[in-house]
């Protein structure tokens, strides 16, 4: 029960008036930043670092504020995904799959409410894991080497099967295109530059933010421009704004499973929230999607990625705090902040700076409650954004996209790149190529290649390294199950109800 008394100490830190104020400010700023395409928590935190120094805030207060911005943005970034089909970051791409169809059907309210509840669920459950299993999980993260990461990426790739609604060949082509884009830039490990055309700005490869905003936001704006009846159309809001009890209970297990898998993937410093959302979505599609409603406005398709990405965001704190290895760009900035306070995260952080660890954990509980209270009442208001005519909304989206993307690297080249991807995205939409597999391919391609190279470097080119060790075997079993179970289930259901299927 030592944990409980330490957590009590943590709450003593988190419930100081200044820290309550900061967690509220962080959550609010984070939500707003999450809503804006392109602008991420990383920029906001970088801007605030000198201000927290100037104000003389203690280290735990700064980290409470920054963490609030981080998980707050995870709440906010689903809003534009659901309402406008415009994800602001790669980790909210999956939320568009069912969130946007729901909004089109006039069910934006329940979708937004579900997203807030799933975020809360994932956020708070993962803090529980953080408190009780942090030392254990950091050991697991150490066991994860390049071979394990490579097979994890293979497993994540099976998520593709859930994105092939419609034309499988086109989805595969999209994924392949994503993998090709992943090869742009300096090859992992070495010094050879690929497909940069002498452009220094492409040395580090394509920026996810630029690609996601170009592909989704810009191409959506272009798509609407290209439609014949311009602008006049206004979306309806039918029925309830709030989520029903039945919708909530149907998503309970979905949220539980997605939070757990999201958290574990978040703990791995080399994976990340985007992969967590793809894995959670495809897993749930295979487990609960009996009537093939995923991708057509199934509320559980919103619950899965939203609980997974919030849970992964909390999980990313474990390697940062206990190993000093940031699992995401945002945790890297928070790590740098701690360092400049003279606090070095590492195995002894929990002993040497209990106020930081427990104060942060307790403040995350406080922050998640605030975010739920902050987000739920506004669901109706946010949903009303849809009542704004498209000719007003879309120029705003375009403006925000340009400003957001420019702000990431202060680079006009990024804006050109984003626009080019916008046009490409438009062509792909018009010709029926799905966009999500490109993002999946790009995210996984880079990680697959670099980990393949590292693993083979270790084994001196021996491929059997990918079949050794318990973690690798478990991942292969999961991969096979994910590929074969749906086929087996389909065959079973076909045998059970032959009449119904023939009728379709």
């Amino acid at each position, binding site marked *: 029960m030592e944990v409980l008394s330490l957590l009590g100490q943590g709450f003593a830190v988190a419930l100081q008036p200044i820290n309550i104020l900061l967690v509220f400010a962080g959550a609010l700023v984070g939500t707003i930043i999450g809503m804006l395409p392109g602008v991420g928590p990383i920029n906001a935190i970088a801007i605030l670092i000198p201000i927290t120094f100037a104000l003389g805030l203690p280290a735990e207060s700064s980290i409470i504020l920054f963490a609030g911005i981080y998980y707050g943005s995870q709440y906010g970034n689903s809003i534009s995904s659901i309402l406008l089909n415009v994800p602001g970051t790669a980790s909210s791409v999956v939320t568009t799959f069912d969130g946007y169809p729901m909004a089109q059907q006039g069910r934006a309210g329940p979708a937004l409410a579900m997203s807030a509840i799933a975020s809360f669920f994932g956020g708070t459950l993962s803090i529980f894991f953080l408190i009780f299993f942090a030392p254990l999980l950091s050991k697991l993260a150490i066991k994860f*080497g390049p071979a394990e990461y490579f097979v994890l990426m293979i497993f994540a790739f099976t998520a593709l099967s859930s994105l092939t609604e419609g034309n499988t060949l086109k989805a595969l082509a999209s994924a392949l295109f994503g993998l090709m884009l992943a090869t742009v830039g300096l090859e992992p490990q*070495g010094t050879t530059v690929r497909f940069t055309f002498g452009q*220094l*700005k492409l040395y580090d490869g394509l920026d996810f933010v630029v690609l996601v905003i170009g592909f989704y936001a810009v191409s959506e704006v272009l798509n609407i421009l290209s439609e014949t009846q311009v602008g006049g159309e206004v979306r309806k809001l039918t029925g309830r704004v709030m989520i029903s009890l039945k919708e909530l209970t149907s998503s309970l297990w979905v949220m539980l499973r997605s939070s757990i898998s999201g958290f574990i993937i978040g703990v791995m410093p080399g994976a990340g929230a985007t992969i967590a959302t793809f894995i959670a979505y495809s897993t749930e599609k295979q487990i609960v999607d009996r009537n093939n409603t995923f991708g057509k406005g199934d509320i559980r398709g919103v619950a899965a990625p939203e609980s997974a990405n919030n849970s992964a965001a909390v999980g990313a704190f474990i390697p940062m705090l206990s190993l000093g290895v940031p699992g995401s760009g945002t945790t890297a900035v928070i790590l740098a902040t701690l*360092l*400049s*306070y003279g606090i070095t995260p590492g195995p002894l952080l929990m002993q040497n700076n209990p106020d930081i660890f427990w104060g942060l954990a307790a403040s995350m509980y406080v922050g998640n409650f605030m975010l739920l209270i902050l987000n739920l009442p506004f669901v109706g208001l946010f949903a009303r954004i849809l009542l704004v005519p498209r000719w007003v909304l879309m120029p705003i989206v375009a403006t925000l996209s340009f400003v957001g993307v420019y702000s990431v*690297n202060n680079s006009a080249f990024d804006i050109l790149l984003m626009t080019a991807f916008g046009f490409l995205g438009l062509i792909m939409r018009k010709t029926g190529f799905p966009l999500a597999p490109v993002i999946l391919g790009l995210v996984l391609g880079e990680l697959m290649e670099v980990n393949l190279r*590292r693993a083979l470097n270790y084994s001196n080119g021996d491929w059997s390294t990918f079949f050794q060790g318990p973690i690798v075997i478990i991942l292969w079993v999961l991969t096979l199950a994910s590929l074969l179970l749906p086929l087996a289930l389909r065959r079973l259901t076909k045998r059970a109800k032959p009449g119904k299927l023939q009728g379709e």
Partner: protein
Amino acid sequence: MKRFMGAILAIVVWSLAFAQFSPKNTECIAPADPGGGWDFTCRVPAAQVMAELGLIPGSMKVTNMTGGGGGVAYANVVTQRADDENLIIAASTATATRLAQNVFAGFTADNVRWLGAVGADYGVIAVSNDSPYQTLNDLVDAVAAAPGDYVFAGGSAIGGWDHLKVLLVMNEAGVEDLGSVRYVAFDGGGAAMIEVLGGRAAAFTGDISEVLAQVEAGEIRVLGVLSPDRVPALPEVATATEQGYNVIGANWRAFYAPPGISDEAYNFWVDAIKQVAASEEWNTLREQNGLAEFALFGDDFEGFVRDQVAIIHGISEDLGLLQ
């Protein structure tokens, strides 16, 4: 007489320098994402300490310009902002390494003006605490006998600074075929350390600041520090030189300025960096962050960078790392 007039002129110009150049809307470019060493160099010694010491008016803007391992910022400064006198850019040994290996699209160290360094992170070679190797000699002898059996993990790319440090030590140890020394690159020192903790890599090559937390926790054992003298943070660890390998690997943290600035502006910034390096504010922060003292400014620093670039270029050429 001419020389005398020149000296007078120089003194006049020099004394005018502080009167004439007054910075405004100062900016520091960190050529990488927030959270790394360059970002720290801009935000702490430059933006924070210079403002605290009242060296610059108001506050300094920090811009992150990511790409090409610092190459995007380098190219941008040389071509677009060549005469911006209010701009300084963070740099480190990694910058010199890339300049030496010609990966900045044709730009060289002579394209900018080097201002001065505020500290350095000395290199370390470390192993996991359950490793059988107790000294750098143990490890180096084992690797020299069978290089194929050992992998070094580090946070920089192949041919990068962490890799070069291993090769410099092996070279001193008399290993002929440096290409046989195995190295796997990870994204940063922390990720590379996980490989050593997980038992996949034999040894870690990185900087002191990267290992301190794990050393304190007893997870990692440092075998040798690549510094001229023992460092206060690791007093019981022998330097590589003490163990017979004359290698000093300093990852310095410094600044450069655009090429076209006036001497007044150049002198202003050199002096500002000098004052930062001497200040109590910075020295406290420097020690907290595991950085050693490393004070070189103005022409001295410019000469140092040129020499280092030449040395690294030579090693890289010998190793076949140049394209």
